[in-house]
């Protein structure tokens, strides 16, 4: 049962899905799309970025805010990255493989491409792009998918370059790794057709399934990211970035609705109180020369303690807007954009070693009444000034309503302020890359990938899998390997589709749950495994042991691991001798039981050969010897 009636609140949500493509090379250079261990970096350099004007002569507001503090960006380079990632060489032409994967995706969503694709520079000055912009191109629009709550439009598909991965933040320096920069990705934006948290999740799931259907997208953590755009009728459009897990989407939507409702409530209250924000910034450093509060002492030593006066805000700064987050947290988020650690507000004081008496001194010094709130910041003078200005701006917005902004998804479903919503001013053409023509003939020549749902049905009808197994394998990362293997063993008597599927999506997850690092298993390992089964070198029962061994020592080949483990000890003559011996020894028992002796005898034989010889083969051999013994009387 939902807490709110979302249709009554006028919820409108849209998703933006970013999916990395599994192309051989990056989007604008010929480097491989390999993720590296940052310890393998062989070179580093650093840069600063500045906000610049677009071709229309405007500066992007998000860019201006982000360059308020001069951050130093340190980049880790590798022997798999080049001067293009370093922003030291113009980009090469757009990767055709990535373009064709993207066109295939456009077809899946019934989208229509533009005739001429223009690569743009989207200003991003958080350092995640060495150039200060992300290259992105609008490729197609006007598509849709069907959900159980109705049709959801797919408004746009853009081909973009992935940003560099943030490694660490040290003071005003941020360290980025360049391996990820330039990996092609598609950005798919839905229309604001989503009307409930549940539908948001369904749309995300379906888009994810469509993307994986191409077999040409990257898998694993961080290779797909969801952004959610949310507004309610009385609220404002808020863009929430970086939702990594599908499970979180519903919570994110619910919590944002909650936040907007609470902010609307606060606004109503502020209006009724006739609250307002004083423009003046008060330097109250002098009041704390002898303070016992460690955080304030730092401010006295390092620079200044500044205060802002919010008339008739008392009690509301501490009001919760999301579980564990208050209006004061929103002020604090803004202050942090100036590089300070946070703020203090009178709704949470006395605290942090700041005494009741000190609070009163501040109130008296700046003429604050009991119904007013005071916000304080302690840091280097310039940072403190920028921070308190940011708080004043945000406090004014609280009276006006809900600010339009870009927020960051937090792991618990809450969100924190990131930057203002960027406008069109952040886009200008990438003149180093020629426009790409998409003729009708070219678009028609691109094959539409078969949907995973369709493929699962085919695995049932053509390969005899049960529905559950078919769906599991269709949605798994092993799908391409599975398809390759079922083709190889199409007519094999020892390896069938169900065995392959059970191995890939049954045994592998099972041993992973037991702590085996199945990420180490390669396609070659699996191919070697099934080849050995096909040639009857090992029994099906040995799969689990063999995979465990290979995952533990990934450098081993399957045949080497088989001999190491003694799994290949299957010598038919030896087995035959053992069976003959067993039959002889149990002669009396057999004479007594007749053919029914097979079961108990099988137990003895299995005990000897479990894991090395297929039970079916043992059973056949035993039956043969038994029949001979009985017929000979």
């Amino acid at each position: 049962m939902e807490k709110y009636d979302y249709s009554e609140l006028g919820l409108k949500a849209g998703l933006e899905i970013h999916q990395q493509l599994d192309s051989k090379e990056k989007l604008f250079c010929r480097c491989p799309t390999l993720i590296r261990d940052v310890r393998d970096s062989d070179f580093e350099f650093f840069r600063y970025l500045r906000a610049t004007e677009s071709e229309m002569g405007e500066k992007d507001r998000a860019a201006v805010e982000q360059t308020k503090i001069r951050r130093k960006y340190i980049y880790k380079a590798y022997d798999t990255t080049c001067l293009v990632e370093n922003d030291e060489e113009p980009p090469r032409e757009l990767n055709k493989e990535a373009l064709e994967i993207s066109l295939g995706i456009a077809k899946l969503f019934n989208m229509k491409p533009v005739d001429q694709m223009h690569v743009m520079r989207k200003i991003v000055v958080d350092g995640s792009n060495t150039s200060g912009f992300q290259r992105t191109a609008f490729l197609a629009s006007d598509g849709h998918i069907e959900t159980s709550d109705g049709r959801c439009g797919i408004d746009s598909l853009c081909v973009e370059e992935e940003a560099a991965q943030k490694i660490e933040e040290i003071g005003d320096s941020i360290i980025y790794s360049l391996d990820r920069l330039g990996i092609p990705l598609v950005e798919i934006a839905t229309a604001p057709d989503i009307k409930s948290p549940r539908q948001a999740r369904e749309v995300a799931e379906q888009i994810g399934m469509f993307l994986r259907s191409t077999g040409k997208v990257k898998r694993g953590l961080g290779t797909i990211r969801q952004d959610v755009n949310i507004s309610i009728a009385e609220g404002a459009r808020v863009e929430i970035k970086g939702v990594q897990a599908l499970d979180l989407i519903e919570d994110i939507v619910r919590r944002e609705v909650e936040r907007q409702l609470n902010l609307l409530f606060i606004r109503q209250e502020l209006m009724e109180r006739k609250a307002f924000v004083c423009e003046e910034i008060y330097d109250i450093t002098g009041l704390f020369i002898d303070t016992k509060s460690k955080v304030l002492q730092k401010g006295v030593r390092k620079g200044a303690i500044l205060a802002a006066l919010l008339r008739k805000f008392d009690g509301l700064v501490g009001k919760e807007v999301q579980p564990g987050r208050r209006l004061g947290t929103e002020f604090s988020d803004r202050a942090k954009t100036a590089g300070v650690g946070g703020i203090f507000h009178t709704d949470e004081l006395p605290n942090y070693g700041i005494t009741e008496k000190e609070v009163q001194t501040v109130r008296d010094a700046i003429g604050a009444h009991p119904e007013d709130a005071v916000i304080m910041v302690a840091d280097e003078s310039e940072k403190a000034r920028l921070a308190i200005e940011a708080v004043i701006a945000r406090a004014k917005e609280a009276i006006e309503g809900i600010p339009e902004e870009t927020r960051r998804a937090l792991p618990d479903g809450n969100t924190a302020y990131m930057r203002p919503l960027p406008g069109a001013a952040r886009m200008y053409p990438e003149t180093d890359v020629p426009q790409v023509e998409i003729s009708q003939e070219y678009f028609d020549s691109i094959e539409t990938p078969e949907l995973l749902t369709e493929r699962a049905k085919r695995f049932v009808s053509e390969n005899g899998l049960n529905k559950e197994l078919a769906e599991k394998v269709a949605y798994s990362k092993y799908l391409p390997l599975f398809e390759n293997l079922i083709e190889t063993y199409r007519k094999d008597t020892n390896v069938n589709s169900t065995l392959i599927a059970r191995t890939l999506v049954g045994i592998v997850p099972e041993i992973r749950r037991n702590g085996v690092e199945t990420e180490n298993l390669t396609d070659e390992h699996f191919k070697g495994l099934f080849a050995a089964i096909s040639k009857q070198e090992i029994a099906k029962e040995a799969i689990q042991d063999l995979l465990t061994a290979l995952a533990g020592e990934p450098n081993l080949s399957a045949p080497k691991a088989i001999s190491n483990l003694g799994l290949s000890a299957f010598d038919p003559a030896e087995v035959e001798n053992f069976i003959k011996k067993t039959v002889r020894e149990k002669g009396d028992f057999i004479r007594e039981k007749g053919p029914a002796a097979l079961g108990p005898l099988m137990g003895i034989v299995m005990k000897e050969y479990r894991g090395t010889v297929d039970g079916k083969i043992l059973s056949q051999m035993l039956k043969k010897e038994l029949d001979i013994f009985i017929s000979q009387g």
Partner: protein
Amino acid sequence: MEFKQGDRVRIEKNGTAYEGKVMPSMEGYITIKMNSGYNAGFSKDRVKVTLLGGNGETPNGGSLNGGKKSGAAGEELPKSGRKLQKIAILSTGGTIASKIDYRTGAVTSQFTADDILAAIPELKEIADFKGRVISSILSENMDSESWQNLARAVVEEIEAGADGIIVTHGTDTMMYTAAALSFMIETPVPIVLVGSQRSADRPSSDNAMNAICAARVATSDIAEVSVVMHGTTSDDFCEIHRGTKVRKMHTSRRDAFKSINSLPIGTVDYSTGEIKTFIDYTRRGERSLKFKPGIEPKCALVKFTPGADPEILDCYINGGYKGLVLEGTGLGHVSTKWTPKIRKATEAKMPVIITSQCLNGRVCDRVYDTGRDMLKAGAIEGEDTLPETALVKLMWVLGQTDEFDEAIKMMKEDLSGEITECCFK
């Protein structure tokens, strides 16, 4: 459907609609900027265009700089309130002063000295700037007349009291202009050439750091013609290169400029502004201003390659050329087949200067017979002078004197740091 750049239009293609502002477009296409900021192109004969609102505001030219000419040079007092040195910024174009031209889609020079000051407000704390546009061309389009015009403007600004000069310049031929200014002007103040390898419209452009470091050098004691550009790929420091010893050694990297056969004069730390020097230099006021703009454009730099036909030299000798710089192999060699042509040139009173395509190191034509024969034919060793510097020097020398012997004598002398007595690396 009639529409022009800047109009808002609706485009329909196979039932899908797009709205946006008309941008400069390629032949046969209409390009629009959509509300999202993305541009997209549509084939004119496959779409229906509806005019939504004509305002004819061009996204080109005038509006490029937003019409917000904030604070032209010298209007605002620096925060420190100190009296600052007067620096003239002379702009000639190039990447440091580049913006996107939406007519061609290419990056062109249309950014004035004032725009540079507006874009890099930190400069105002370093000096009191005056901007002057000399030309707006990419450096590959410069010629010896451009050098003379620029040198004249530099001299005028020094005479008018400038304490230092900054010349913004395209990087491709910056080393030629730097050499030309070095020979034409004996300067009592710093003359600094600066450019950028990444266009000024990108947040990562090297223009701001290079310009700020150039301003530090222009207000310093280093009264030489120098080139100030990134020292490494990081934004850590700039190198100060002597105008006659510098060469662009990479097509695209920020630290493309290197001093050859010399250490740089010094470095400028970007964060602190501190200048460190490595070699001796001429100090502010040590020399008084002298201007000798004469130049002979008909000189050529000829690269010798294996098997190259000696008759190439006849084209120059018979074509009215007044002097030649040869870029020989190794220690400064050309094929023995070229020797008679060298003799023919020197007999026609054309100086022939030998430099090396190794760039690094000194020419020596006294080690092998080939070299000795070249010297006997009248060729002059360019010592450790860079080939391009030797060419500019020869042009300037021949602009100063018509006397062959005098020209030869000048070519053998170090006139502006182009020949060093000892090579240290």
